[in-house]
Structure formats: structure tokens, C-alpha cells
């Protein structure tokens, strides 16, 4: 177990270095001269020169890469925005809570509803309810979050006028913020609801089929007790892995939902920077999401190994 942990952690170092190098080199992917591409056709040579100096484009690649990495490791310095000159660090820090709240709330919704549906379906295997739930979960997994967001917006905000259309709610007013959170988190959650329901159903059925459940049955333990006390404990394992993986994926998937609902989160910050060609902000945002994603994957892997010790033999 310990060996697996150490190995998994050691492999992180080269991966993170690669991630750093990739985000750093993003600016060199721009066609033509990066600084003049970013500033557009009306920039004067002096402004271009100044930006080149600020971004370290006038120095050799390795020197500026070294400086970039050193700045991040020692000071958490991600540079500053090309347009607003705000430090990127604080820009991202402002946006991060919105995205984390969104991702966490949609994960909670997905787990609660998905588990209820999955357990219901497995308890009534072969019934009409089961086929409805299975059908729903198959369709739900095929609905991308931006499609779900548009549809929810259309039905609940425009037709029924139940929810606000855009924004994240007034600052300090928790009720209004919650009100603004419901539609975005449901649109992120919907495909995960389907996925978790499907996962729980199939693992529950598999577990209910195993020998020790048969033994419990032959002892005359009531079915309800078996399902919740014995089977669910094992069926919940894959969900644990999904939580970690899902949180990371939701951080990325939040881009669409945040743009559609105009929430000032991390995804919206990245998307806005992309449209404004503010590459340093894009780099910072990408680096932060990648870092969070790697972290959540790590937690998922480790918790999975913890819950299911057989994993290390694979």
C-alpha cells in the first residue's frame, strides 16, 4: 500500500513539470510574433517591445522558463494581465470560490439523486421502473452540460420564470446566491446523475449476485436489510472513485455553464481571457485547473486504493 502511495506521488513531479512547461509554451503556439498577435494590428512597435520585455519573449526560451517556474514556486507569481495589469494570482483567487461551490453542489446533487435512482432500479430489477430509470440514465449521460444549461434556462427561466437568467446573485445575500446556483449546478449534474445511477445499479446487481449475499439470504435475513447493510457498502466503492474524478472534471466542465449563466468563476475567467487574447491569464487559469485536476485525480486514486486494497496488484 505504502509503496503504491509513494510511487503515485513520485510520478507527480515529472507530470507537474511537464504541465508547467506546456502552459509556459502556450504563448509560443500563437501564430507569428506572440506579442504583436496579442496586441492586434494597431499596436505601435514600442508597445510591442514593452510587452515582449514584460513577457520575457526577448530572452531565450530556457531563461524565461526558468524564471517562470522560479516565480511560481517561490512567490506563487503568475504574472499580470496584459490588459488590466491586475496580478493573475488575485484574479484567479477571486474566481475560484464560485467554481468550487458550483462543482461541489452539482456533485452532491448528482450523488444523491444518482444513488437513489440506482438503488431503486436495482431493487426492482426488470420492472417498468427499472427500464425507465435505465433509459433515463442512458439519455442523461448523452446530454452535454451546455445543452442541458440551454434547455433548463429555456424552460425554467424563460417559460416558467422560476429562476433568474444570469449572474451569481447579490454579494452577501445567501438566498439569492443559492437561487442563482440551482440551474447551473443541475445542468452540470445531469449527465453525472445518469452515470452514477447506471454505475450503482450495475454494481448493486453484481454484488447481490455474489455468494455472501446468498449466504445471508439463506440465513433468513430480510432482503431490505441485506440490500442496505451488506450490498450497498460494496456498491458504493466505485462512487467514491467517481467523486474524486468528477470534481476535477466538473471544474473543467464549468467553463460552458459559467459562460452561459454568466457566473464569474474560473471557467468564465479563462474563456474571457481566451477571447481577449490575454494569454498570461489563460496560462494562469489553465495551470490552476490542471493543478486542481491532478490533485483530485490523486485523491480519487488513493482513496480508491484505500477502499479497495486489491487495486495494487493490478
Amino acid at each position, binding site marked *: 500500500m505504502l509503496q503504491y502511495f509513494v510511487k503515485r506521488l513520485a510520478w507527480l513531479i515529472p507530470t507537474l513539470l511537464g504541465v508547467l512547461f506546456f502552459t509556459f509554451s502556450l504563448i509560443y503556439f500563437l501564430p507569428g510574433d506572440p506579442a504583436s498577435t496579442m496586441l492586434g494590428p494597431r499596436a505601435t512597435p514600442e508597445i510591442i517591445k514593452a510587452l515582449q520585455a514584460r513577457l520575457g519573449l526577448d530572452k531565450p526560451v530556457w531563461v524565461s522558463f526558468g524564471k517562470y517556474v522560479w516565480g511560481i514556486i517561490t512567490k506563487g507569481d503568475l504574472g499580470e494581465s496584459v490588459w488590466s495589469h491586475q496580478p493573475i494570482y488575485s484574479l484567479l483567487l477571486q474566481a475560484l470560490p464560485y467554481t468550487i461551490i458550483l462543482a461541489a453542489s452539482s456533485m452532491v446533487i448528482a450523488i444523491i439523486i444518482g444513488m437513489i435512482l440506482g438503488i431503486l432500479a436495482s431493487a426492482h430489477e426488470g420492472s417498468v421502473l427499472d427500464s425507465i430509470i435505465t433509459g433515463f440514465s442512458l439519455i442523461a449521460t448523452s446530454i452535454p452540460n451546455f445543452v442541458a444549461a440551454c434547455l433548463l434556462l*429555456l424552460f425554467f427561466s424563460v417559460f416558467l420564470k422560476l429562476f433568474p437568467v444570469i449572474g451569481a446573485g447579490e454579494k452577501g445575500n445567501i438566498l439569492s446566491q443559492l437561487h442563482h446556483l440551482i440551474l447551473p449546478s443541475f445542468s452540470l449534474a445531469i449527465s453525472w446523475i445518469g452515470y452514477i445511477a447506471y454505475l450503482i445499479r450495475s454494481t448493486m446487481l453484481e454484488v447481490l449476485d455474489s455468494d455472501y449475499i446468498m449466504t445471508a439470504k439463506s440465513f433468513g435475513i430480510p432482503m431490505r436489510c441485506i440490500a442496505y447493510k451488506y450490498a450497498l457498502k460494496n456498491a458504493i466503492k466505485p462512487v467514491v472513485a467517481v467523486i474524486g474524478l468528477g470534481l476535477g472534471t466538473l471544474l473543467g466542465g464549468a467553463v460552458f455553464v459559467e459562460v452561459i449563466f454568466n457566473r464569474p468563476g474560473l471557467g468564465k475567467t479563462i474563456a474571457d481571457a481566451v477571447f481577449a487574447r490575454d494569454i498570461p491569464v489563460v496560462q494562469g487559469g489553465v495551470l490552476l485547473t490542471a493543478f486542481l485536476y491532478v490533485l483530485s485525480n490523486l485523491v480519487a486514486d488513493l482513496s480508491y486504493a484505500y477502499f479497495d486494497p486489491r487495486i495494487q496488484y493490478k
Partner: protein
Amino acid sequence: MVDNKKGNKYLLQILNSFKKKRYKQLKNIVRIFSIILKDRKGILGITIIVIIFCCAIFSPWIAPYDPYEQDIANRFAAPSLKHLLGTDNLGRDILSRIIYGARIAMTVSIGGVSIAVVVGVVLGCAAGYIGGVIDNVILWIADVIRAFPQIILILVLVAVLGPSIPNMIMVLAFTSMPQYARVARAETLSVKEEEYIFAVKSLGARTKRILLKHIIPNILPPVIILAGMDMAGMIMWEAGLSFLGLGVRPPTASWGIMLRNGYRYIRLSPWMIIWSSIAISMAMLGYSLFAESLRITLNPKESMEKQVGV
């Protein structure tokens, strides 16, 4: 001398039996399809895929109108007999645009998946077969790519390289290549140790032949399942990028652009959102159903593993 001949004979026997097995594999493909066609989900999936392909290939003949023909007097029309699905913000026929949109979706998804499969399988085989430093380097590259949430990577790369269909295909292929490399590597590692590979090697077969004739056919089943699910993912990414304005350029008929227009004019007409959502979700559903029933057929024990991208 005599022993050697006997040995060769033995090896040839193994090889022959292997050849027969491969013939059986061909039969298996036919069998797989007949099993899929017995499965209700599989039938549904294949039907949807066939419909989309027909739309994409025969769009000029199927579509009732020119998808670019504007009729400003008749914008935001509700579905009627004249325009079965209504008209959009420029009075263009939505049905025709949905049908033409299948072309973009198919081009991008097939292009992206096939490049990703080829590059991923080649890299994965090389990593698994050669091992050592090359294995580590390829694994490292794959892990670095997978360290980013896929959508963030796609978004940023497309934005930096410039939005166009070829760029979109390349970026999608680049971001989904690692999963094929991983599968191919794992399968190569397990197949590499099989006895028949040893037999072929001692008969003097070259590495290229071993890889092409003996290892790759074994890798294909899991890769095909992955590719089926990836098709759904690529359709989603294409629509998503076009929705954000980073994919196909506006006059072109694409499901993502229709959704974008629907979102923009959400208070004026619900139809653009509804129809383009149905098109995107149906296409994705078709491929996931197909992949799912393929998985059940090829590997009954495994359940749905990796489905949701976002």
C-alpha cells in the same frame, strides 16, 4: 538437425492454429454484429448512426431547403408544414440546417477519432513493445496531456492556434490520443509475453511483422469500444466549441452554432435550442449505445466505465 526440423514443425503448427484463429476472428466480427442486432439498445444505436450518416452524405438531396437561404420576413417561425422544424434568426430552414450540420459533426468526429486512434495505437504499441526510456517518455507525454481537464486543453489550444475545422480536428485528436496510447500499451504488454509471439520471433519474423500481424489485431477490440464512445465525445466537443464561437465559422450549418443562436435569441424563439439539443444528444446517444452494446458483446463482464466527458 532432426531436432531442429521437429521444432520448426511444432512452431508451424502453432502458427497454423493461430491463422485459423484469425480466420475465426473474421467470423467473430460477423457474429458480434448479429449479437448487437439482437440487443435492443444496439439496434437503436446503429439506427441512429445510420440516419446521421445518411443525413451527412445525402444532405443536398434530403434537405428541403438550401441551409443558407435567408428569408428575413419569416424569421423565428414556429414549426409548420412549410418549415417542418421552423426557421431561425435569419429565416433559414432549421430542418435543412440540422441535416447539413451532420456533415460537420461527422467530419470532425471521424477525423479526430481516426487520427487519435492511429497515433495513440502506434505510440502505445511502441511504448509497450520497446519499453525502457521510450516507454517512460511516451507515458510521461500521455500523463501530461491527461493532467488537464480535456475541455480546458481543447479550448485553449483551439483559441491559440486559431479556430478552423482542421485545427479543431488536430486538437481533438491530440487531447484524446493518450487514452488510446494507454490501452494499446497495456494490451501490448500482456500480449507480448504470449507463447505464439515467442514462436513467431524464433521463426525470424521482424518486429514490424509481429506488431502489425500479431499484436495490433489483439489490441483492436478495446480500442474500437473506446473509439465508439469517443465519437460521442467529439460530437459534443465540436458542438461546444462552435457554441462558444471557437469552432466552425458562423454561416456554416453546425449544431453548436444553432444552439448558440438559440441561446442568443432565447426570448424570441425556443425552437433553435430544442432542435439542436435533440440533434446533439441523439447523435451522442447513438454512439454511446453502439459502444455500450459492443462492450457487452466483446466483454460481458465489464460495465460502463468511462462515459461522461464533462
